Structure formats: C-alpha cells, structure tokens
C-alpha cells in the first residue's frame, strides 16, 4: 500500500511512453497525411531529382488521389535506411543504390511481373536478379564505369588511351604523365569510397571464373586478392597517387581532373559531370579497365539509380502505378538522361552528354564486356568498408600488403559466416 499510488502512476507513465515508442502501425513508413514516402537518395541540387520532381508532378496531375512525397538525400542515407529497416519504420519506396537484391530484397516487393519488366535491361541481370529470376527495383539507369581520364593531360604526355590494354601499359602512361609534373591518379582518402574503388575496379580482372565462383560460395581466394593489393602498393611506391591523398575530398578529385592536375580517376561516371562544373571545357572520357590476367579489358557496372517498393507499404498498388509511370519510355529516357547514364529499360533512350562518346566507343562499337561490381556479387554484404580501409591503409603505408590481406580474409570469413 505504501507505494501503491507511486507504482500506479509510474505504470501509467511507462505504459503511455512505451505505447508511443512502439506505435509503428500497419502503414509503416507512410507519411502521416497518407502520401507515399519516396526516399529518393538524391541530393537536393541534383539534376536527376529535379527531373524526378517534374515527372512526379505530371503523375500526380494524372492521378490526383495519389500523393507522392519525394524526400531528398541525407549524408547518412545508408545508415538512416538501416535504422529505419531495423525499427520497422520503412518508407513506401526507396533508392536501392546497387543493393536491391543483396541487402534489401527481404523488405521489397518482387517486380518481375510488372508490365514494364519485359524491357528490363539484360546488362543488369547479374547485378539485380536472384536465382529465380526475380528482381526488386525499377532501374532508372544502367551504371557503366571504367577509368575516367583527362584527354588533354594524356595528349600532353604523349599517351593515347587506345594503346592502354594492360596494367603495364597503364603504368607506362602513368609514368609519362608524372614526368610532365601531373598527378597520374587522384584519389580521396577522406571520403569513404574512392580508395575502395581502386580494388573494386581491379579485382574482377584478377580472378578466373572458377575462382569467382569460389568467392561466391564463401571460399576466400587470397593469393589473387594479394595481386590486386600488390598493384596498389606498387603505384604508391612509384608516386602515382596525389600527395594530398589523406586529406583530399571527392571535390578535390573533381577539381584536379577538371583543371588538368590529374590524369586518371577510378570512379563512376557521375564524377565526369561533377568535374565539368569546375571546368566545362575539360576534355574527359572513360576507358575500359585492363585485366590482371590475360583476359580482355572490361567495364564495371550494374544497378545505380533504382527504386523498390516496401512489402509493408499500405499503398503498394499506388506505388506500383507510380513506378510504372516512371518506367514509361518518355519518362525513363528523361530520368536516365538526367543521371547521365544509359537507361535501365531497353525501350528508353538517353543522350549521356559528356559520357556519350566514350559509351559509343567502348560499349556500342567495341562491345566491351560489362562485369558486375566485385564487392556486390563476390564478397559478403558488409565488405565494402573493409575494401576501403585496407586499400587506404596500403596507400598511406599504415599496413603491409600481407596485413591488409589478413584483414580482408578475416572480415570475409566472419561476414560470410554471419550472412549464413
């Protein structure tokens, strides 16, 4: 009796608080006003977001009962999404940034039976479809990437990209560029990504098909990964990387490339558009990636801008209608063009601007092989950060190649085990 009143009061307060905390409801992620929440994953000032807004406005005019709430990107998009998925507060539609199958498929509706799915770009199949042929996002574009170069810098150094067939050729070109006082390869050590791109771009060419299958099945093929890290260490020793590597941001990479202070960048092609903002007259393009074995050069790519629908959305039918609208050829073409990439559906076309000439040269004419991003397909989910930090530790001489390789192997085994 002594503390009966207190306990009762405490019980009421706690119950009310916990009820408030756990109020996720059935319509997970839907905005309070009943609109469909779309986590666009796109920066506020991006060209793609403004085109998406335009297309969405015309969709809403045609479907006045459906309200779409486009949410721009945050700098912590991936972390935010993980927290929202863990807490059950899932948006209706979200940007899957290359992970619609391997990370998000358990939360997303399969879309292979939608009418537009017959036009799904087969170049995306390896990266987006599972073993049953199901896929979980509507692709706005098809990401194709190689090694970005500044042609004017290479011309001054007497290098022609057409002659770069092997890593030996690449090193000869890098040495010629360096001899002209220009940084051969610029990388940002401050951003969490560009260092990882180096190993992600080189790795597919270091393995045979059998070895790639072994990786996929959970066996780490370390000697081949070592050849990739050795190559990075060699470039470091030869002084091919930018001296401000550790403190350089991605904008520094863009500026260096645009202003002729660097010759090569290992990155997606959106870096070209970013660099052109600093110098619209820069003569930029991309080239295929040489193989570390005797195989042919290749380009990497797959899913980039794609949108999936939450299984738990209260508006799945309207959300499907919205994605179908985006997938209409005229809209898909507009969106892909804004992204500066090839469309994700075969019945759309896009002028890729500054990237078009390289695309025509290497994809349309030379029919260069397109391979999926190495980390997304052959390494367990969660390995990207390990790739970034271990490559970074080699460039900065914080680790030997063997120590970095040990870290990659250890994380590979534990993350593969965790995913089982």
């Amino acid at each position: 009796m002594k503390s009966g009143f207190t306990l009762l009061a405490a019980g009421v307060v706690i119950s009310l608080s916990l009820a408030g905390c756990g109020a996720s409801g059935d319509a997970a992620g839907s905005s309070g006003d009943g609109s469909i929440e779309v986590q666009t994953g796109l920066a506020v000032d991006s060209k793609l977001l403004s085109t998406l807004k335009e297309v969405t406005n015309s969709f809403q005019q045609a479907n006045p009962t459906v309200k779409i709430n486009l949410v721009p990107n945050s700098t912590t998009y991936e972390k935010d999404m993980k927290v929202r998925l863990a807490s059950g507060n899932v948006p209706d539609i979200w940007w899957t940034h290359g992970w619609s199958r391997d990370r998000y498929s358990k939360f997303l509706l399969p879309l292979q039976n939608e009418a537009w799915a017959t036009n799904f770009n087969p170049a995306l199949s390896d990266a987006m479809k599972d073993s049953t042929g199901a896929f979980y996002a509507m692709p706005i574009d098809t990401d194709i990437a190689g090694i970005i170069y500044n042609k004017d810098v290479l011309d001054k150094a007497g290098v022609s990209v057409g002659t770069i067939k092997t890593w030996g050729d690449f090193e000869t070109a890098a040495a010629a560029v360096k001899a002209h006082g220009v940084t051969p390869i610029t990388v940002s050590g401050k951003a969490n990504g560009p260092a990882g791109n180096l190993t992600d771009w080189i790795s597919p060419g270091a393995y045979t098909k059998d070895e790639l299958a072994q990786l996929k099945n959970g066996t780490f093929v370390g000697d081949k990964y070592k050849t990739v890290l050795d190559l990075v260490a060699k470039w470091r020793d030869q002084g091919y990387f930018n001296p401000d590597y550790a403190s350089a941001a991605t904008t520094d990479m863009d500026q260096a490339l645009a202003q002729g202070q660097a010759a090569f960048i290992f990155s997606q092609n959106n870096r070209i558009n970013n660099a052109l903002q600093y110098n619209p007259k820069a003569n930029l393009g991309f080239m295929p990636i040489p193989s570390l074995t005797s195989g042919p050069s290749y380009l990497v790519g797959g899913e980039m801008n794609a949108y999936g629908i939450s299984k738990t959305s209260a508006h799945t039918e309207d959300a499907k209608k919205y994605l179908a609208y985006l997938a209409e050829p005229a809209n898909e073409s507009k969106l892909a063009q804004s992204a500066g990439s090839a469309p994700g559906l075969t019945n759309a076309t896009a002028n890729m601007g500054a990237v078009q000439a390289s695309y025509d040269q290497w994809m349309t004419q030379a029919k260069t092989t397109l391979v999926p991003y190495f980390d997304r397909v052959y390494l367990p989910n969660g390995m990207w950060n390990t790739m970034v930090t271990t490559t970074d530790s080699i460039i900065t001489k914080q680790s030997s190649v063997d120590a970095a390789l040990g870290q990659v192997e250890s994380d590979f085994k534990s993350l593969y085990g965790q995913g089982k």
Partner: protein
Amino acid sequence: MAETLITKPSPLPATTPPHVARRRRRKGGLVNLLYMPALLLFAVFTVYPLINGVGLSFTNWDGYSPEKAMVGLANYTRLFSDDTFRMVLTNTVVYGLGSTLFQQVFGLGLAMALDRPLRGRNAARAVIYLPVLVSPVIMGTMYYLLFGYNNGAFNDVVTALGMDRVAWLSNSTAAIAIIVAVNTLQFVGISMIIYLAGLQSIPSEYYEASMLDGARGWKQFTNITLPLLQPAFATSIVLNLIGGLKLFDVIKVMTGGGPGYSTNSVSTLIGVVYFDNQSAGYASAMGVVLFLMIVLFTLVLNSLLNRHRLEA
C-alpha cells in the same frame, strides 16, 4: 567493575501515531513521483539500450534484418584475436590517459595562475573555458582546417617558409597526438574550474601558519595544496578520463578514424563495425567491453584517489 547500563535513544516512538505515519507515506509517495520522469528517461534511454546492447552482443545481427541468431560468446572470442580491435583499444587508452594527464597538468597550472589577484583574470578564465561550450564537431573542423594538406593554415606557413607541405594527419602517430592536443585544449577549462574551486576552498590560515614555520612555494604546494586538492583531483580525473575513453566527434571530423583504422577509438570503431561492416552483434560486444573498461578504470581510480585522500 560496576556495570553501566546504556540505552540507545530510539529514533522513533515505539508506536507512531497513525496520522503522522499517513503524512509521511504521502510525502514519500510525492517525492517518488517527482523523480519518476528522470528515472523513466534514464530507464528508456540508458538502461534499456544497455540491456539490449548486451543481448545483441551474443547474436550475429547485421543491424537491420528482421532475423538474428544467437552465437554465444563468439563475438567476444573474436575480439581477442582481432588485431584491429587491439590497436584501437590501445588508441582509446592513449586518448583517455593522454587527454586526462595533460588536462590535469595544464588545468592545475592555469588554476594556480588565475587564482592570484591578477588584472584581467576573469577574462582569462572565460577565454580558457569558452572552448568547452563549443561543439567538439566545430572544434574538430576548426583544427582540420588548420592542419589540412592543401588549404591548411599551418601548411600555408610552412610553404611561406619555403618548405614542402606536411601531411599532418596522414601519419597516425602525429594524428593521434594532434587529436589528444585538440581534446585537451577544448576541455582543459573544466579541469581549471574544478581546481579553482578546490584552491579557493583551502583556508588561507594553512598557508599563513606554514609560512611561520618557514615553508614557501614548492613545500607549501606539496604539503598543503596537493593534499587538500584530492577531492578536486578525484572529480577532474574521473570526468576527463571517461570523456577521453569515449572520444568520438573530434576523431570523426579530423581523420575519420584513418588512415586505415589507425586513429579510431573504440567508440568510432563501433560505428564503423555496426553500420559499415554490418556486424551489429560484434559492435555490441565492443560496446560492452568499452563499458566494462570505463567502469574498471573509474573504480580503480576512485579507489586509489580515495586511499590517498584518507592518508592525506
């Protein structure tokens, strides 16, 4: 020997009148109700996450999937064989002990200097304390701009002197030292204020009496000031140590934990392992170890400082 009967006075009459007992109960209930909101917030935002975190440390959860499996002590055994974790644990101890040591030395020195009747001492105290009010993110960003390679102020000076730019934050030893220095500079004001309060609580008669016995300067400092500052030491050291062991913001802003993992603290590594490596279970095990480490350091320090205080 005559037997002496001593009866202890009873704190309460054998029987408390019912209306008094009722009033006391009501008063007790009201007091309980007043602290309930704080208790509730503590339970929801500290106790529940702590218990949940300990539970997660025995699972293989990736941080977002609906399913997870129990893995027993696997995450803890992995910690023992993880070279990166060992390195980061060492960094954490360096951040904790390094920041604490320098903050005590400089904090006490500043307190003693500004305890004297100097002109402008209040302004000096305010200036030294001001960085405490600044967010560590802002503090870290300011120093990142000073130590930056391309546009950093220090490198501008270096190049003006005709020397090559220095990649201050690319060398992990230098970067760790810089982080310790920035953290010290930011929070030395707290130590200074604690020691100032301690110094002002020492009666001046002690110093006057010691002067009659011929004690001056160093002797007074070691025999009067230091022993009587023991409570201030205990507070300042424990506060600074906990802050140093949990260091996060400055590291994130200045180096992002790099190059490689080499400047991470356990706090920053937990974020990386939880979100980037998608090993929430393993990150939780790291969190539990950090928690135990802070508890252990605090208990040992408290016990040592209390023993000194009793001896003094």
